[in-house]
């Protein structure tokens, strides 16, 4: 993992000179081993920044909050926000730029490269520890993980703890940044969509029961869409109520709000909700894995999004998150797009 001393220096300078409003970074969490989002307004707090494999969050999500905050303010502070991004997170920035949700001048991007590492998968860690609780997770000089529990330290090979998405990462370094910490090293990648094979190889009936079992657990807490930087709509199409209401919204508009699905957490409604979410993220999901991580019921949501990422690549040669000038996946086509499924 990159050392971030140079980044801290820059952060201090930015805050001291008032070039950024604040900096979104990672700090130590108070609950267990995981880092937590940290919002730094003062240069003296910069030393609270941490960078290690527990920095799993996609902080780009908070740019959405920042935009909403600015929209509420009468005279918003137009200075950029500093933000720490990993490779995957940086691709989220690219998508937000592509969709003109933010302007390049809204952000000062402090890129950190995961280099050969990535982030820890909490489910994998929990399984390894079988009930014990980790206090710290660190990386040693040999790029192995060292997990500290109440009963002492356990060493593990990186692959055993790294999130699946990190093992399938296309670029484990930021693709857009103002300052980059670390090297642009790439992990060799044989099967970029290898983790899907398990589900793809099932029969239709088995896939159906797999997803039913998974999605029946959903309680519609909407943590998945709340954690997602691409789910920035003010009003989600699956919501049955209007959220984006202004003085101009007519009673008819409110009355005509479509009930695509019910709020009730039932099998069919959960499935449709997640299908809508998946299709809306097609060509937009950059595989930061936050939806899956945030899910309290451990629904493997990443498999839905990753599947469409794979199809976009294989059917249309579309790769998301590298070029802000690219049209969106569904707002372009190629004459040779496959149509073997059409009669």
């Amino acid at each position: 993992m990159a050392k971030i001393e140079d980044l801290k220096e820059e952060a201090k300078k930015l805050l001291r000179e008032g070039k950024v409003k604040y900096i979104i970074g990672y700090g130590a969490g108070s609950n267990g081993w995981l880092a937590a989002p940290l919002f730094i307004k003062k240069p003296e707090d910069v030393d609270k920044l941490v960078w290690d494999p527990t920095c799993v969050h996609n902080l780009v999500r908070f740019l959405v909050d920042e935009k909403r905050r600015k929209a509420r303010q009468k005279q918003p502070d137009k200075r950029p926000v500093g933000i720490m991004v990993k490779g995957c997170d940086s691709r989220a920035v690219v998508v937000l730029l592509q969709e003109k949700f933010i302007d390049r001048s809204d952000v000062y991007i402090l890129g950190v490269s995961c280099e050969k590492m990535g982030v820890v998968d909490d489910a994998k860690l929990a399984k390894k520890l079988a009930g014990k609780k980790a206090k710290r997770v660190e990386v040693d000089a040999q790029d192995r993980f060292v997990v500290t529990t109440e009963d002492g330290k356990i060493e593990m090979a990186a692959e055993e703890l790294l999130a699946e998405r990190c093992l399938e990462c296309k670029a484990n370094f930021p693709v857009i940044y103002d300052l980059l910490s670390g090297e642009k090293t790439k992990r060799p990648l044989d099967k970029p969509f290898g983790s899907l094979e398990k589900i793809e190889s099932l029969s239709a009936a088995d896939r159906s029961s797999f997803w039913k079992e998974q999605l029946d657990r959903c309680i519609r807490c909407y943590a998945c869409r709340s954690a997602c930087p691409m789910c920035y709509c003010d009003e989600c199409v699956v919501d049955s109520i209007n959220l984006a209401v202004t003085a101009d919204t007519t009673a008819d508009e409110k009355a005509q709000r479509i009930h695509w699905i019910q709020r009730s957490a039932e099998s069919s409604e959960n499935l449709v909700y997640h299908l809508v979410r998946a299709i809306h993220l097609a060509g937009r999901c950059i595989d930061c894995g936050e939806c899956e991580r945030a899910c309290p019921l451990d629904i493997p949501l990443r498999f839905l999004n990753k599947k469409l990422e794979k199809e976009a690549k294989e059917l249309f040669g579309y790769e998301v998150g590298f070029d802000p000038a690219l049209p969106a996946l569904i707002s372009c086509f190629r004459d040779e797009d496959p149509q073997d499924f059409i009669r």
Partner: protein
Amino acid sequence: MAEDYEPRIVAFLCKWCSSAGSDLAGVSRMEYPPNVVPIQVMCSGSVSPLYIFSAFNKGADGVLVSGCHPGDCHYIKGNYYARRRLNLVKKLLEYVGLETQRFQMSWVSAAEGTKFTQIIKDFVKELKPLGPQTKLRRNP
């Protein structure tokens, strides 16, 4: 499956080609099963994935989207967007275990009454052995 099971199909037909093709089937007095209820849309490009999910959610056993042949779109290129978007929808539905036969897309021109008829016949025939669609359907 019970012999008298009749699948319920919603067909989104673009106004200029497929709906006209379906009209031609009528004018030519071709016969096909009455399982399909058509919804005329302006262009296959306007068929949102939400329509498809919703139709299945409200109880459709099959959904058909039919538009103009490539290059033939009344709106120049709407069917190309539809082709890309609905391919993703199809892949996604199959991925979550919906039988592949349940969602279909076709190109039917205004002159292809016969083709339209054949597509509906085949669709109904393929859906019958599958029985009612329960996966996306609310309160099946």
